[in-house]
């Protein structure tokens, strides 16, 4: 009982850290910092999954934690960093309009997510049920990050962070997804980053920049 109580406190702490990182992602202007934040988010995800696996004694979850560590903490940030370097976009900063307003919108999203999660977390029986609201909030905040960004790489990182939130939600509501699905998602993510990487090069070749508002007009004048 004591062990479990301590684990719950620790998990809540990690969940809070996850939320914190989501807000940091929302407010940062630099691409490289965004990638670093994504890496930290993956690390927190790894720690929390491993903790749940330890507490519930589920071997499957250990595998999925290891997968998280390999993919989201090591492989994807490495690939993204490599892409940014190849694209020469290290110092390309985003022109974010009005960060305080975005932050307030994010705050409203958090309230909404907590409100939505309240009935679900009453039903859930897992030890992480307190964190369902935070997982939902992370998903919504990543959405907001994607909406507020113009640059392609930042949008992709927002997408990846959203997947982190989904993974966290799955772990907190139902002790993770079946192994087959998790493997499939992991592979999908890897492939998606590769394909999007190819897109980056194509977009830059066409428009000389990674700014996606060039794609909004249908034809050239």
């Amino acid at each position: 009982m004591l062990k479990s109580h301590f684990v719950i406190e620790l998990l809540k702490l990690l969940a809070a850290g996850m939320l914190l990182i989501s807000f940091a992602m929302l407010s940062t202007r630099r691409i490289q910092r965004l990638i670093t934040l994504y890496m930290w988010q993956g690390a927190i995800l790894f720690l929390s999954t491993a903790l749940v696996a330890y507490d519930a004694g589920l071997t499957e979850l250990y595998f999925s934690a290891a997968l998280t560590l390999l993919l989201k903490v090591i492989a994807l940030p490495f690939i993204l960093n490599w892409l940014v370097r190849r694209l020469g976009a290290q110092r390309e900063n985003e022109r974010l309009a009005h960060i305080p307003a975005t932050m307030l919108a994010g705050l409203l999203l958090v309230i909404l997510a907590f409100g939505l999660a309240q009935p679900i977390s009453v039903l859930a029986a897992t030890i992480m049920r307190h964190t369902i609201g935070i997982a939902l909030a992370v998903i919504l905040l990543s959405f907001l990050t994607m909406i507020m960004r113009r640059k392609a790489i930042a949008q992709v990182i927002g997408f990846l962070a959203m997947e982190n939130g989904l993974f966290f939600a799955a772990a907190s509501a139902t002790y993770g997804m079946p192994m087959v699905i998790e493997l499939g998602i992991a592979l999908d993510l890897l492939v998606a980053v590769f394909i999007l990487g190819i897109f980056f090069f194509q977009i830059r070749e066409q428009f000389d920049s990674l700014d996606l508002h060039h794609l909004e007009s249908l034809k050239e004048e």
Partner: protein
Amino acid sequence: MKGIAFVWQLVEVALAIALAPLLTGWIAQCRSWLQNRSAPPLTQPYRMLRKLFHKEAVVADHASPLFRAAPYVLFGAMVLAAAIVPTIVTDLPFARAADAIALIGLFATARVCQALAAMDIGTAFGSMGARREMMIGFLAEPAILMVFFNAFLLFGTTALPGVVDHYASHPSVIDPSVIFAAIGFVMVLLAENARIPIDNPATHLELTMIHEAMVLEYSGRHLALIEWASSLKLFNYTCIGIALFLPWGIAIHGTSFGYVLFALAALIAKLAVCGAALALIESLSAKLRLFRAPEFLALAFLFAVLGLLVHLLMGANTSA
């Protein structure tokens, strides 16, 4: 029993007044080390205070009594604040008179007084500094209030000694909301004490200065009091931070001499660590443009509100 509490209260205030310049000196020393400069001695602020007290105070011809009174009001407010913040003992007779919200009011009084005095002479720098100070102040106040509300919600009292009592006697509680509140608090501390992301305390000749612009017209003993008061303000804020987030080791009901000595040692150790951490933050961050300051403080406010939310929605579940 009652008398000894008053004695400790007075000791605590005297200690705050005496130690405040030391903390400022320690931070300056840490900053120099981090920036590969040879550091000024720890006693540098005391020497400067002594020099200033020995100098003649020059006051402008047009100065009103407000201008002369402001340094004393400022210093008095900070000393009074030091009496409310528990540093070594929590059984403070003065603290019953005012809770943490009154403490914020005290800081606001000092700020308004200083801003009015800066505008009093009518120099361009003075009024510019005063306006900037008020802008920072009105943005920082809601953030610090929210940080306090976090602690109040957690422990069900608005008195700082009460919060510390509860906190120090339940060391196992690590509420996630505390992390958010702590981050928000550090940001407010930096902004309120003219530290680097908002203001640079080391410049006197730039258009970006805020605090220094307000005190440009002061000299002699007036300037000494103002410098001492700003040291005390930093000391008070650091002690509030320690009380809210790292209260372990404080003498809870301790009126026994040994226990208080231990608390004093713990306080000095914590102050040393916090001072070094502040110097590190200052060395790592670049000064923000003035128009980024609202963004910075909005972030602090946001963190504090997030802490409240996290506490209300996750903490409520655990107790059930």
